């Protein structure tokens, strides 16, 4: 009578070796917990790394004029006007900004309110000259850009809100244009237009809640310009902008012109690095579990020589012995994954109290399950093939 491949003898064997098998189940469960959360974290950081910015960052050029000695703001603003005129002659869209896109520094958002309304929102402000719309390639959804805006006298600074900021403050985009807003940093302003969301200030929460405020932004130390090149080859524009700013004639300053490089921004380095570290951590879990299982192969076969010998003596062929081991491993892995799923849900609830963005989805669960089933079967294959080589008479040797 050839022993058939049914689950009952496997379950009996498990009961017999319950200590060793329970440990395997526990290891799979904990490994699964680790792997799912490694994948969850990787997804979070990878999303940050590749998030579309809503602006053509690969054609933008950032120029800075740093003053060697601090100077009065009015003088700096006069410098800015001269510089903008010189840069405009290059034919590329240009605007002055209070900070470069993708600044490395975190900043406080500004509280925005509406006169006579309780509703308020937090938004990141960007102070810029009217060329901001063309330079940053902002898509106007409602109203007009700062360059086309005709502000009535005494109406306050013209403001462009992103769709997110407008919806948050007014409930709808349609009614935002022409409305008065108060920004805690600049005072009264009027909404000139609403633009599609873009992502200017790094990777902070609600990064698309932005208000572009029309101004002549300078400090006593520095002026920042952003130019838009006609294509991704930015070298000619960098050279031309550098020459134009140098020729503007302010020798008490230093000029720096560079292509905007998203990959060099801190948020990009950190999120990219985090993905690599997480891949390494996930690899360690697999390596630890797999190396242990493979190293155990000779022991597990030696321990069960008699059992395998009996099965072979009863007519089981080598393929059936291999299948027996693989099925046994599959059952144990399934138990482990079941327990792991419960633990994963519990750990995810804890981690989300620390970082709300670490949301577990079915994708991570399924991918982790697949990884553990495949590595489990691989780790079982070595002892299974070794066990298949045991001859039937081995059963008699230890009886």
């Amino acid at each position, binding site marked *: 009578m050839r022993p058939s491949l049914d689950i009952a003898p496997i379950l009996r064997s498990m009961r017999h070796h319950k200590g060793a098998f329970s*440990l395997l189940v526990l290891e799979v469960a904990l490994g699964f917990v680790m792997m799912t959360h490694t994948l969850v974290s990787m997804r979070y950081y990878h999303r940050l790394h590749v998030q579309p910015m809503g602006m053509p960052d690969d054609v933008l050029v950032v120029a800075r004029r740093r003053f060697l000695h601090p100077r009065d703001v009015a003088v700096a603003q006069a410098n800015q006007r001269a510089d903008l005129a010189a840069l405009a002659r290059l034919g590329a869209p240009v605007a002055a900004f209070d900070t470069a896109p993708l600044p490395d520094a975190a900043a406080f958002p500004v509280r925005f309110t509406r006169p006579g309304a309780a509703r308020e929102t937090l938004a990141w402000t960007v102070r810029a000259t009217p060329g901001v719309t063309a330079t940053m390639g902002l898509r106007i959804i409602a109203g007009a850009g700062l360059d086309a805006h005709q502000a009535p006298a005494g109406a306050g600074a013209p403001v462009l809100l992103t769709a997110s900021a407008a919806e948050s403050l007014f409930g709808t985009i349609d009614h935002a244009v022409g409305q008065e807003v108060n920004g805690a*940093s600049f005072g009264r302003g009027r909404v000139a237009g609403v633009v599609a969301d873009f992502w200017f200030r790094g990777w902070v929460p609600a990064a698309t809640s932005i208000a572009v405020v029309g101004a002549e932004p300078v400090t006593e130390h520095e002026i920042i310009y952003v130019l838009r090149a006609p294509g991704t080859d930015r070298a000619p524009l960098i050279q031309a902008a550098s020459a134009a700013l140098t020729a503007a004639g302010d020798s008490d300053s230093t000029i720096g012109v560079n292509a905007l490089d998203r990959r060099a921004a801190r948020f990009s380095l950190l999120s990219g690095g985090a993905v690599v570290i997480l891949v390494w951590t996930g690899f360690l879990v697999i390596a630890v579990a797999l*190396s242990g299982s493979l190293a155990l192969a000779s022991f597990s076969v030696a321990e069960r020589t008699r059992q395998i010998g009996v099965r072979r003596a009863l007519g089981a062929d080598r393929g059936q012995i291999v299948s027996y081991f693989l099925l046994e491993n599959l059952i144990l892995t399934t138990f482990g994954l079941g327990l792991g799923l419960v633990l994963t849900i519990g750990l995810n609830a804890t981690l989300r109290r620390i970082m709300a963005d670490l949301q577990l989805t079915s994708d991570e669960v399924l991918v982790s399950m697949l990884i553990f089933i495949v590595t489990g079967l691989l780790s079982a294959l070595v002892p299974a093939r070794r066990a298949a080589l045991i001859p039937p008479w081995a059963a008699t040797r230890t009886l």
Partner: protein
Amino acid sequence: MTDVLYTLRLVGKSLRRDRWFTAVMLLSQALSVSIFVTALATAQRYSNVTGQARSDVYRIEGDRSLALTNFFRGTQFEGFGEFTANFVSLPTVRAMDATGLPTASTVGFVSVMTGGPVERPPGRLPVRFVGAGHFELFNVDFRYGGPFTGADERAAPPVPVVVLSDALNRQLYGGADSVGRTIRIAGHDFRIAGVMRQRSGKLHLWDFGVSPENTANLMVPFAFADELRPLPAYTWPPTLPELGWRAIAAAPTGMTEYWVRLPSPDARARFATALSAVDPRMRLVSADMIAARFSKAPAPYRVFVILTLVVLEVSVINLMRMLLAKATSRAAEIGIHRALGAPRNAIFFRQMIEGVLVSMVGSVLGLALAFPTITMFDRLIPDSPVPLAITPTVAASTLLVCLLAGLVSGIYPAWRVASVAPTRYLGKI
């Protein structure tokens, strides 16, 4: 003693007998420990900062912005919104300094200026404006030279001296002794008086809330603020940069931290009363209490520590499985020992020693592997100019956790082999 040596010899033999198996156990433990140590080192950089300021040092704090605190809650910037409480206006600082109650005090704010060593073209230079009191309030250790003094500040004109952070000294001078060299800031030349020693793998208490690219900075006497016209990196509420230094310095906007030393309870009480008269929203918070806020690491690092703890648990279970398999395979040998009179607890003890030994040797290897791992981490995640370090606390915590892990991983296999009757084992011969 003889028994212990005999046991250790048996354990050694057992480990040598299956060399590859032992190597796999050690390597898997070492790899898990290396990543766990890295996670601990990253968390330690931003936490447990007690002992950096004297016990009678206080900071003046305002209200936290609840809206901002909620805005950042649950993100990797959790706590950033609470920094709004740190900033006080210069008129408040002047009013409180005028009370004469603090035995030492300092402002503290960072501004990005233009400058650098005179030998090189000027560039971006983060500068921290402080009073000489800074070096009296905090336990500052110097790598080279020393601090500037109150006399330097009060001289007319003030003596142009600065103190560099370790990180900036590394960036500008490759870590060499730069004392006596000249650095130019916004067109003014300053002599370097000292280079502060960075606490190993740990952020300075006064650098919390400063963005990483501004942490490698130099300290300039506040007496030079009117000449250098700094633009504070943070103000609360946010203010317009084009107002210029004089307007910002005169405004009621919070723009600087303000630390004071108030040794006597009477001075503290009188200072608190005077403070509430100047601004009822302000209060005194002790440096110890501020340090206690940073007992926990930032959210991403806490998550990382938890995940690596799970890796360590996987390694413990793995070790347990391997020790169990090894012990079971040596059943006959154990049976002979038992038949010859070895008591159960001797077998148990021997197994436990084997588990703990493997775990501890693996952990020491893991600590060694952690050095290249943290170097890799620093390169991949340039989160701070303060390099990660395996501090004595990190090493001791790791070894303690691993000792516990060794005990846990050894206990079940030891109990299993010690609890079975010798006749059962002898049947396997």
